[in-house]
């Protein structure tokens, strides 16, 4: 599904990603962890075209998307959520999900102006179905900015799913949540978001990772230091070192 080759990106001389190679198979759910500043979110930003790669390639279904614009990449089937929540605060919850449909194939110039056709009604029904699934149906007419944090994360999830993306990128979907809320979120992602698609999850919370992922990849200083089955990766000495901060040379 997704293949990354020799990806490199630096900001003002500081390398955020260095020679990163990564391949994610169809239907795979991969966890991505690593200390702060290890390049996880930068990787998402490069995949989605927010940042340009300095060198290297990103391929989606063997098609290169490295130099594409964010809009085109989204239309090719990648959707994401954000670590620092990004929602349209001045729109209602329902509108926040509805807006993600604007660029779906089939939404032509007519559909941009009128919302009376049968196809439009079906699309609206899809929005409501998703809001129901993430548990926001009863608050769909509330201004999105007034939701509490866990609900804003759920809203981002619904917005990402409304396009039925082939590849879903979740950036700390349980960030700032209590363990109870995290468990709920993990169940929601496992039962609703993941089936039928490929998914990469950035998350520090092992409970969530172990609920969701068959595979875990660890970044440190923009490099992949471990990759494999979660239980084994977490025992990997280099991973512990990354978190412990022991100098690898002296270990």
């Amino acid at each position, binding site marked *: 599904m997704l293949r990354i080759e020799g990806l490199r990106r630096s*900001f003002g001389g500081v390398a955020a990603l260095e020679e990163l190679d990564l391949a994610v198979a169809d239907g795979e759910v991969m966890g991505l962890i690593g200390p702060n500043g290890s390049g996880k*979110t930068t990787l998402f*930003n490069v995949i989605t075209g*927010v*940042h340009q790669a300095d060198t290297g390639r990103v391929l989606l279904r063997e098609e290169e998307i490295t130099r594409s614009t964010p809009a085109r990449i989204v239309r090719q089937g990648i959707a994401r959520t*954000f670590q*620092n929540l*990004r929602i349209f605060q001045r729109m209602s919850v329902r509108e926040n999900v509805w807006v993600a449909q604007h660029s779906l194939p089939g939404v032509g110039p007519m559909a941009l102006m009128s919302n009376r056709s049968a196809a439009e009604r079906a699309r609206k029904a899809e929005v409501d179905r998703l809001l129901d699934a993430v548990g926001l149906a009863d608050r769909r007419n509330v201004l999105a900015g007034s939701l509490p944090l866990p609900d804003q994360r759920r809203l981002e999830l619904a917005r990402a799913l409304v396009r039925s993306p082939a590849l879903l990128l979740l950036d700390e979907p349980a960030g700032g949540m209590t363990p109870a809320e995290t468990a709920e979120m993990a169940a929601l992602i496992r039962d609703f978001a993941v089936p039928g698609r490929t998914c990469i999850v950035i998350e520090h919370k092992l409970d969530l990772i172990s609920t969701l992922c068959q595979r875990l990849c660890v970044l440190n200083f923009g490099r992949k230091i471990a990759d494999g089955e979660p239980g084994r990766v977490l025992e990997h000495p280099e991973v512990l070192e990354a978190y412990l901060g022991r100098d690898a040379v002296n270990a």
Partner: protein
Amino acid sequence: MVDFIQNCLDGIMLGSSYALLAIGFTLIFGVMRRLNLSYGPSIMVGAFVGTLVYLEFKANAVAIAAATVVGAVIVGIYVERLCFRAIRRGAAVASMVSSFVIWMQLEEIVTVVFPDRTYFFPPMVTADPIDLGPFFFKVENIVMFAVAAVMTVLLHWLLQYTRFGLALRAVSENPRAALFMGINVGAVMFLAFVIASAFGGVAAYLIVSADGQITPLFGLWATFKGLIAMMLGGMGSIPGAILGGLLLGVVEAQSIWYLGTEYRDLSAYFLLFLFLVFRPGGLMGQLAVERELAATRRV
């Protein structure tokens, strides 16, 4: 060729007053990252205060100049309180619009108090132009250039060698970090406004006394000249403001000579438009713009 050089010299003299206006603009932009479009009108009000002092007391040049500066500073403080301090952080555009409507307010106040619109403004010096080889210079232009140079040196000293200058630079580079140093950022912004207004007051006095008259339209003129000069040089950069002012002066002088007076402002706006489209950071501010663009692209 002699014409061309004479035009350049005239342009530099003219440009030195633009540079003074641009320095005021850029000081405010540097510490606040906001545009004060009321800048011209506030110094215009200052010049009318000077006119009032002249009309009422037949005061001498120094008193008129002082009244102009004081007037400009007082109006500047009014603008700072209403359009900048009171508007929450991050709303740079709201401040800009607010300063624009206050501009109209100031212009109307002046029209109500000074109904004749155009008033005589006493010249600073009366002397014949000086010839120097094939070139000639108006004395008031030389004074303008000299005062602008002195003010620039003064500002350089203030910024580089005083405690306040350090604070001002710290705030314009990183307001958050400046707070951590114990710098009172609000007070620094206020003082930057005061200094910018004082600069504007001096510039207003020099320009208006060289013209020999003042109208409420001077506010619009000063805002546009200062704004164009600042943007040509690069927003927030003091060397940029000086360069931008001189460039604008030279371009205007050349277009008056070669194209005609009616092309003077047109070529200035055209130059500004070209810069905005192809080099929005201006001559000196490219780096700052890139840094800000990078920040807005961050997710």
